[in-house]
């Protein structure tokens, strides 16, 4: 808590919405995965089941406040995505505690969960259901989704006929159809053409005004600097710095040039 308010004099965001307390996450290394019963039985008998742990996150403590746009930066494999997963209930932390005071709307990786043979319309409802919405919730925003994604003419065609840009637009439109309390974006705003990107950014601004907390991962540092209130830099599963976007990005660039 003190960490957030000590950054600046004014305290625009003081109500915690996501809290990570000494969070660590370990994966088993893929080479240690045992694929067959035989292998399992033999190793079990020989007491050779050694679990080599890989710590994707170590001892992360962080607080994100209500209404903030918070960015995560770091090299590939630094633990950014793992952190999003721990926050969105996908992974349970190996150690430590995660507390979230709000409903999370995750943004699916574009097209994940889309079925190529189904029409755009059918996929909107399927995707919405995957995100946890009900039928009536999806019906109330359907027209707006079609309009936002600019797919009026194609909404009844199977999505296998869509271009990757159309795919991306529809995916974004579904995931952001409702004003969420917490929105999680994993490297997504960098798709689509420039006009659509402007539209996305505009929608994000609206969310911000409506009080949505946004948590985003991206390698587009300039964009993050323009959008975020605070940024955390993660490296090898540890936080290297949190605070003013400009400062953190400078430090990150200094290390990686």
């Amino acid at each position: 808590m003190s960490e957030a308010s000590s950054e600046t004099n004014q305290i625009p965001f003081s109500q915690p919405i996501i809290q990570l307390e000494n969070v660590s996450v370990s994966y088993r290394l893929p080479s240690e995965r045992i694929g067959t019963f035989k292998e399992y039985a033999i190793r079990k008998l020989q007491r050779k089941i050694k679990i080599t742990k890989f710590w994707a996150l170590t001892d992360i403590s962080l607080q994100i406040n209500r209404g903030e746009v918070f960015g995560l930066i770091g090299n590939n494999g630094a633990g950014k995505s793992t952190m999003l997963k721990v926050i969105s209930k996908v992974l349970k932390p190996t150690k430590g505690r995660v507390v979230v005071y709000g409903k999370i709307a995750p943004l699916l990786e574009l097209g994940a969960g889309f079925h190529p043979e189904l029409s755009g319309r059918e996929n909107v409802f399927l995707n919405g259901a995957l995100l946890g919405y009900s039928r009536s919730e999806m019906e109330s925003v359907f027209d707006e989704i079609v309009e936002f994604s600019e797919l009026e003419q194609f909404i009844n065609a199977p999505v296998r006929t869509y271009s990757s840009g159309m795919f991306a637009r529809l995916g974004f439109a579904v995931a952001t159809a409702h004003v969420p309390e917490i929105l999680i974006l994993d490297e997504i705003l960098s798709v689509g053409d420039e006009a659509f990107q402007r539209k996305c950014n505009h929608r994000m601004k609206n969310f911000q005004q409506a009080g949505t907390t946004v948590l985003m991962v991206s390698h587009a540092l300039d964009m993050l600097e323009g959008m975020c209130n605070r940024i955390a830099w993660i490296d090898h599963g540890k936080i290297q710095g949190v605070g003013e976007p400009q400062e953190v990005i400078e430090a990150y660039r200094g290390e990686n040039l």
Partner: protein
Amino acid sequence: MASNSKPVYDSASYRVSAISELKELGKYRYLLGQLIRRDILTRYKRSVLGVAWTMLNPLGTMLILTFVFSNFFKSAVLHYPVYILSGLLVWNFFSQGTNAAISGLVWGGSLLKRIYIPSSVFGVSAIGTALVNLVLSLVPLVIVMLVDGASFYVSMVFLPVSILLLTAFTLGFGLFISSLAVFFPDVAEMYQVLLTAWMYLTPIIYPESLIAAKWMPFYQINPMYWMVKMFRLPIFEGRLPYWHEFLPALAWAVGMLLIGWIYFTSKTEEYAYRV
């Protein structure tokens, strides 16, 4: 500041249990319906005859088996085509449902790694899809009965109970085997071999009367023996099952459902790490 007293998610108190997963499934019932819908719509999307294949498929298999085996078994079974088809429907439901549960969880795994979804939704929707197919394939069964001149007994009103027992057993087994397949990928392959053996150990294409009396106790260990029996008795013998026939089926159905559900949910927190 103090307004947000109650967290929506707290990893310290979050634990997936058999009960909590049931509640989550209730919340995601719309997704359940959407997944069943998707599977039924997309399976035959590009074929001309579409969903009709659900009915034509067992019909075709029945015709082949009748043609091949009728000389062997015809004298032993009256209305052999009806006998085969009724057994096949039960077996197809079981094998398709459990296989779909395995592939559903593996497919769903790519989503489970990205967003939160109750993982049981894939297995339950797989069995739901199989159930829709089973109900649809009752149509060709009725047609074959009419063509073959078999009688329709009042006891057939018992069939919904038979289907319910079969569904419970299949769901429990599907959840169990799909959970195993997440941890041991070889299970999915082994299961195909097991299914073939299992089918021949169940009286589906051959009449029960051909089983020697001394082997009967072994046949009766097989839960699918009881499931097929529940389905066939009302159609063939025109009677309700006796208690000593009904109770084993009930015990298998309830027991397997409980075991499968409890085992599946006890592993749920690990799936996102493993699939």
